[in-house]
């Protein structure tokens, strides 16, 4: 069985598993990193949204063998460390707005929001209503109103 090596939340990890197992299951079932959630397994619900090399991605759609030893995967568990704080500003915004209901999709929502803000900042602009409309992460509790408020609040502090 091949050995897979990549960076996870700031540390190098190695795990023995077949190349084609999707990263979501390597994280959840083998490494016990359960912040990224399963909601569809086909990259449409976005509940597993995490970051690879700073960009948002969905580990349910990435065979673990596609990752190299230098690829840095960040899950919700590793997000605060990217800013050297207890909580990332986006998590603080989420707490202030009390966004979560059941909470199941929220790690993915937060990771998507952080990537979205970084993207518009790279493009030298601010979050627009169209950007918010374009967030694909589904929330079956319907927390969209507070998500929109929190993304804007988090943006102001990033």
């Amino acid at each position, binding site marked *: 069985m091949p050995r897979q090596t990549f960076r996870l939340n700031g540390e190098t990890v190695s795990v023995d598993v077949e190349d084609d197992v999707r990263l979501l299951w*390597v994280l959840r*079932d083998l490494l016990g990193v359960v912040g990224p959630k399963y909601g569809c397994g086909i990259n449409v619900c976005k509940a597993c949204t995490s970051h690879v090399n700073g960009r948002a991605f969905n580990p349910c759609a990435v*065979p673990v063998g596609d990752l190299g030893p230098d690829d840095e995967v960040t899950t919700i568990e590793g997000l605060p460390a990217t800013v050297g704080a207890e909580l990332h500003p986006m998590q603080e915004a989420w707490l202030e707005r009390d966004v979560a209901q059941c*909470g199941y999709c929220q790690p993915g929502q937060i990771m998507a929001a952080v990537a979205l803000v970084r993207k518009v900042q790279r493009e030298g602009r601010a979050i627009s209503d169209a950007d918010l409309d374009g967030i694909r992460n589904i929330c079956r509790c*319907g927390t969209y109103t507070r998500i929109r408020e929190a993304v804007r609040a988090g943006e102001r502090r990033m």
Partner: protein
Amino acid sequence: MARPTTDQTHDAAGEAAGEGTSAGGDGVRRRTFLGFVLSGSTLVAAAPLGVGAAPASADGIPTVPQPPEILDLNDFLTLAGASTSNLISITINADGTASFALPRAEVGQGITTSTAMIIAEELDLPVDKVEVTLAPARPELLLNQLTGGSNTTISTYTPIRVAAAVARRALLEAASVQLGDAVDQLVVKLGGVIEAPDGRRVTYGELAGPAAAAQSRGVEVELAERTSHPVIGRPQNRIDALDAVTGRKQFTTDLQVPDALPTMVCRAPNLNGRALRVHNVAEVERMPGVTHVALMDFGVAVRARTFGQCIDAVRAVRADWDPGTVTGESDETVLARLQRDQLPLPSLPSLPLLRTVNADVTFYFRSNSAMDTNSAIADVRADEAEIWSGLKSPVIAQEQIAAAIGLPVSKVRVNVTQSGGSFGRRLFFDGAMEAALISKAMGVPVKLMWHRADDARAGRTHPMCTSKIRAAHVGGQVVAFQQSHASVETDFRHGLGEAITGFAADLPAGLGNLGFAETVFTLTQEMPYNFGAVLQTLTESDGRFNTGSMRNIYSPDVRAASELVVDRLAADMRRDPYQFRRAFSRNARVTAVLDRVAQAGRWGRAMEPGTAQGIAIHKEYKGASACLVEIDCRPATVGRQVRDAVTGPRVTKVVFAIDVGLAINPRGLEAQMQGGINDGIALALTSSLHLRDGHFLEASWDNYFYTRQWNTPPEVEVHVMPSNSPQPGGAGEAGVAATFAAVACAYARATGTMPTHFPVNHLDDLAFEPKSFEPPVPASPTNGLRLTY
């Protein structure tokens, strides 16, 4: 027992629990209750869960009261629980915190937070010093461990307050011994400190041991009706919010139970098809990671090292299936059956000037799938078993699972886990039952997770139904309103049904003769208008589908159809829709919420062609709600392109007003309304399942179009109405019905059409390519690294 002065009527349950009422010299109404200090090494204070159960009277004096005004579904659930005088208990710990195991399920609705608030207020503790967990199945609670009907706070508010008051009194008595001052000389300070007149202090933590009882004893405590609330009624963030945003909140599939490896089920291509034979067990067993394959009645179970390998194994299974329960059936054939079984509307008197308005509206199947798919962990051994699952009816689950695996109930521990959403879904324990049976068959622990495609296609649905309405008016008065609602059978066989069976004889007005569904319908449907002779009937006839009481059960559909007819009546009588509703409202609280949304939402403001406002009201669960929406049905909006999505009409603004009585946590209540608003929009515009040729086509979130960010209103305002009521009402479902109805009315006004079916896009061309039925789950994609942003 003194006759209460305000809203309490005869209170048999309260008497049984030793409750009395008095008005003190200061005019503050007090009620005495019997609680207990239970034996233990630390202070454990308890109260019977049925205490304080009393039907509240209606606000007005209607001429012909409808059943929900005498006894609604919530009174029913509360009374059903009252008979089982079993205890809930609050423990005071040595670190000064209080802990409580709530015999209900937290599924996102916020009851752990509101419960912590109730305890914090009674004990003068900060909310973060109160830990609320979920109790495992407690068989002695019988019917009183069911989470449904927005009933949790209504039924647990007084018992929790009584237990907390018992704890407070025991702490004061222990402090009195330690400090040498009489109890009435002592002052409880915020934060769990008791202070003597000379300033000496002792903390709850220090008192927890001394206040403990060697032998359990009964304690009488007095609950004063509070004039001010330090905690209740103030916005409180969720107690699990930090865990949710850091990924630490644990759902069933996040739990690490030794050797409980990932397990999935390959299901039949047709709805409820049974597995007859597997052709390639050995081949599947040899696949990477796979440990076990088992032929079960409900499908072929596979267990593997990862869920990804389970998905591959499910896709590899080759099996024979029976044709299922609805082979060959489609939306049209099910609808034809409903229309055949629908009760005819009674004839109206022939008056010369009588005018009638008629409507026929169909509501297609909708998925009751939450984000966290159906899942359970089971470890079934020869002589005992343990289950973990998000369960709203764990007592029935425990009984039936024990019977199915051949163990006594006492040998089956059923743990209630936090759920990622429910909306009624987790009243059913089919996942837990399957996990237990698979664990028994394989002889190993399993962590069963349904694939999203299983949840969408084989999961619970809101049943298809159709409503025929006729309303008649003459001389400016509505003289009759008739609604005949016909539905595919709603499955209540999860505890609520058992509760109804047990209490049918106690129901008023001969309701006990009705079946489960008719009883729930009768106890929930209340026409909020003075419309003369009102008759609403339900027929349920087709039991072949997996259905459930999805968020707010009948009300969203029944009310949407009714409110569309109300708009038609107003138009026929040349009245403004808002003024018309106001004039015919039969309840002051309904009128108040209606006025609030009309004012805050600027009802009647000029709108562009193709856009419109809609307004609607709803009364249920001891609460009143109103919703005003604005919708944009202009072609440029309807035609917006978003990949793998349905756009269509956009609700651009929602103003919602809710009166639940005493709002324990207004911030949580607002959240529930915001969620209910998105549900209402989904029901009106985008969300449905298509039944074709014996199976549902939708298999995932790119097929089933629940409200998304591109559909959600950019502007949402929720108004929580002030209330003098001492009693809380239900919150979890109250946002859906009025929103659905308001969106329906706005859509009708914007397009100048009368919708005949919901969601309005259901009969359009499919917005997706159906995924395969064999294999029943889609392949896992591989292109994730090309889709980063």
